[in-house]
């Protein structure tokens, strides 16, 4: 049973397109996150939701819009994709906000051509 699953694992698309990445966790956690890992492997938080409420919204272009239909799901929609959006996007969850372990999905490698 996969704890945090995200789809798709690979996504290749053209500039200007709109795409979505889906994430689901079956751990019963209250908090979910989206992280972006760049080509130098640096992981930077983008968004966090706690019980479907947005609690962290870093300096991210508003072309990126997260949506949490329920606390087990956090999807990421990206409009008007740009070359610089190419990266690996990780979904994660934790029991609660603060000092708790984060469980990560396998990542979605997004390539914009």
């Amino acid at each position, binding site marked *: 049973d996969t704890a*945090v699953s995200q789809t798709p694992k690979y996504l290749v698309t053209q500039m200007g397109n709109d795409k979505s990445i889906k994430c689901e966790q079956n751990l019963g956690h209250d908090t979910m*996150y989206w992280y972006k890992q760049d080509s*130098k*492997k*640096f*992981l*930077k*938080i983008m968004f*966090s939701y706690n019980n479907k409420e947005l*609690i*962290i919204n870093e300096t991210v272009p508003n072309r990126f819009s997260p949506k949490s239909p329920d606390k087990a799901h956090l999807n990421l929609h990206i409009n008007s994709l740009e070359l610089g959006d190419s990266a690996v996007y*990780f979904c*994660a969850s934790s029991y609660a*906000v*603060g*000092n708790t*372990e*984060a*469980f*990560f*999905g*396998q*990542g979605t490698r997004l390539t914009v051509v």
Partner: protein
Amino acid sequence: TQLLEQSPQFLSIQEGENLTVYCNSSSVFSSLQWYRQEPGEGPVLLVTVVTGGEVKKLKRLTFQFGDARKDSSLHITAAQPGDTGLYLCAGHLYNDYKLSFGAGTTVTVRA
């Protein structure tokens, strides 16, 4: 500038050797975590340290949290090829929801 600075960035050693990875900051953390990430996978938590001066051991891995809660180290004894991976430190500042990551140390253990 990053909140957590990791060094070295890359480390390549022979099987059986020891290695240490450092994670430093000018900020005080309520806790620090170490993760290992393998190619094509997400990071997996190895340990969380919460008390200044704390030392935790996980088989051949020893983790230390600095007395001032600003730094941490990961020491691997008698490294094996299976220890190869990207090691990431991450921490929570007090009263901050965010888990901030260091840039990572890529460890390669040659057989």
